């Protein structure tokens, strides 16, 4: 009896309490974001009430947001750019990843090294000259500037993730297919790709998230309200001068966060296993 109690106490101190502290640290900001967006202004700025609870839940902040701002447009822009760039990067990443995992050709190693290095290059190192490149391409102030530039950091990521997945698939099957008259590309598309589906889903989802969250390029290349994506529109368009409308800001932040949170909850299994696999191979 005493021993059982001692074990429970050990588990409490050694696992549950510290874990609860970490969970509180990780999740409290989201709780605060959510409750702030369902409060009306008088309650939001009332310091006498218990601030950790909603006394009169209301959708007022969301109504204001939809009535006064282009939030639907920003959400659509984010969705459009993220979906398109992940499809593009995924396709090019599959091609490059397969080439590096399976084919031998002069320069393959150099290319592998180059993708690895570009994966490390932070966007803040080249955003200034890239702005002038984007301008010369005639894409300033348009979401197409993002469609063109995001693959530069997504392709290296997808390529590296997929090399690991392709390498884990035995070579025999595609060699058999090729002896039976299938071309190299045919074998890649019909045999190898279906077997690498978990890796493909993980990389595509992660690319989508990276695009959805990207900030530096979107801030630098676009100043037109209707062309902005959520991550930039909310902090730049909803803060007018020195006035912070916290209710609206939190409601918009919630709307911008929920899509990736939903996407990720559907595919969490892939996600955690993909991340851990990536970390092992990295």
């Amino acid at each position, binding site marked *: 009896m005493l021993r059982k109690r001692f074990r429970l106490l050990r588990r409490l101190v050694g696992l549950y309490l510290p874990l609860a502290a970490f969970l509180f640290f990780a999740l409290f900001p989201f709780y605060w974001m959510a409750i702030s967006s369902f409060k009306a202004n008088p309650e939001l700025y009332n310091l006498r009430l218990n601030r950790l609870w909603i006394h009169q839940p209301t959708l007022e902040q969301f109504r204001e947001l939809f009535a006064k701002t282009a939030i639907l447009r920003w959400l659509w822009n984010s969705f459009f750019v993220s979906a398109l760039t992940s499809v593009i990067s995924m396709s090019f990443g599959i091609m490059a990843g397969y080439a590096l995992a399976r*084919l031998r050709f002069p320069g393959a190693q150099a290319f592998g090294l180059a993708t690895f290095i570009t994966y490390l290059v932070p966007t*803040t190192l080249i955003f200034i000259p890239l702005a002038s490149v984007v301008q010369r391409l005639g894409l300033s102030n348009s979401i197409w500037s993002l469609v063109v530039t995001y693959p530069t950091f997504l392709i290296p990521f997808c390529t590296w993730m997929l090399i690991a997945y392709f390498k884990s698939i035995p070579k025999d099957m595609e060699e058999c297919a090729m002896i039976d008259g299938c071309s190299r590309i045919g074998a890649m598309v019909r045999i190898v790709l279906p077997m690498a589906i978990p890796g493909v889903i993980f990389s595509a989802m992660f690319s989508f998230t990276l695009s959805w969250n990207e900030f530096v390029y979107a801030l630098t290349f676009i100043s037109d309200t209707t062309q902005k994506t959520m991550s930039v529109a909310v902090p730049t368009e909803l803060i007018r001068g020195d006035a912070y409308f916290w209710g609206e800001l939190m409601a918009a932040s919630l709307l911008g966060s929920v899509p990736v949170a939903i996407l990720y909850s559907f595919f969490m299994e892939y996600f955690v296993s993909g991340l851990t696999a990536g970390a092992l191979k990295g």
Partner: protein
Amino acid sequence: MPPSTGPGASGGSSYAHRLVRPEALTGYFLISPAVFLMTVLLAYPFVLAVWISLTNRVLGEPGRFVGLENFLKLLQDPLFRQTVWNSFVYTISTVFLKMLLGIILALLLNQEMPCRNLVRGALLLPWIVPTSLSVLTWLWMFDSLFSVVNYLLLGVGIISRKIPWLGDPFWAMVSVVIVNTWRGLPFFAISFLAGLMTIPKELYEAAETDGARGMRQFWSITLPLLQPVIAVVVLFSTIWTFADFQIVYILTHGGPINATQIFATMAYDVALVAGRIGEGSAISLFLFPALLVVIVLMLRYLRRE
């Protein structure tokens, strides 16, 4: 057609011959889109960055070649020196915190518990959600009048006076460090967790029979075997933190009185707000040596593994 792989197949052929082998052609075809995009939108801008940093270009005018003037001027500039100092403080303290807390969290997550996947998923959330939006929430949580962090700390009795989170140079740095740690911790913890899961259980059982327990096991088994993962994650995070932009840009915009100004935010302010593009490019390029060090260390490390 038999696949012409293997070193024997191309043993006696010339370099040019190897280039036109069908396999090589397929390879070049497959990497060509990636190579094209990365050349036009990464390599070229990088060369352009070096060129612009050697000119006195301002917004709207091409400027002329001035050699290393921008760099020399920056090294004399007290504001830039402070930026360098801030960037180091920011990077070293957040990477250290993320590493320490990441190891603790990974050890916790590696134990048996109910709803394990749900807990892991919930802890990853700060890393998944758009940083600019979650940092806005922190900005609201650190608000000078309505700070809920102060409300909580005062309520529990940890502090007796409000902390001026973003209004004071010291606390502003503390704030950006807290937020960066909050955002980056999940990546560290999950990567370390993956590392922990590869350590064979037999090692611990053997240690147990030899009478080694608890901390002793951690120092002699867990930490040495986790070391490769720790090294890679720390290197990754160092370069990304060093070049970080959005947390500081949204939370403090470099203030108060430049107490949290770091490379990327200063480069943005100088190049795109003040319009001195040459000088701004030079500031960005100071990130390059850091990147180079990380790349060299990483390659050396991965090669040894």
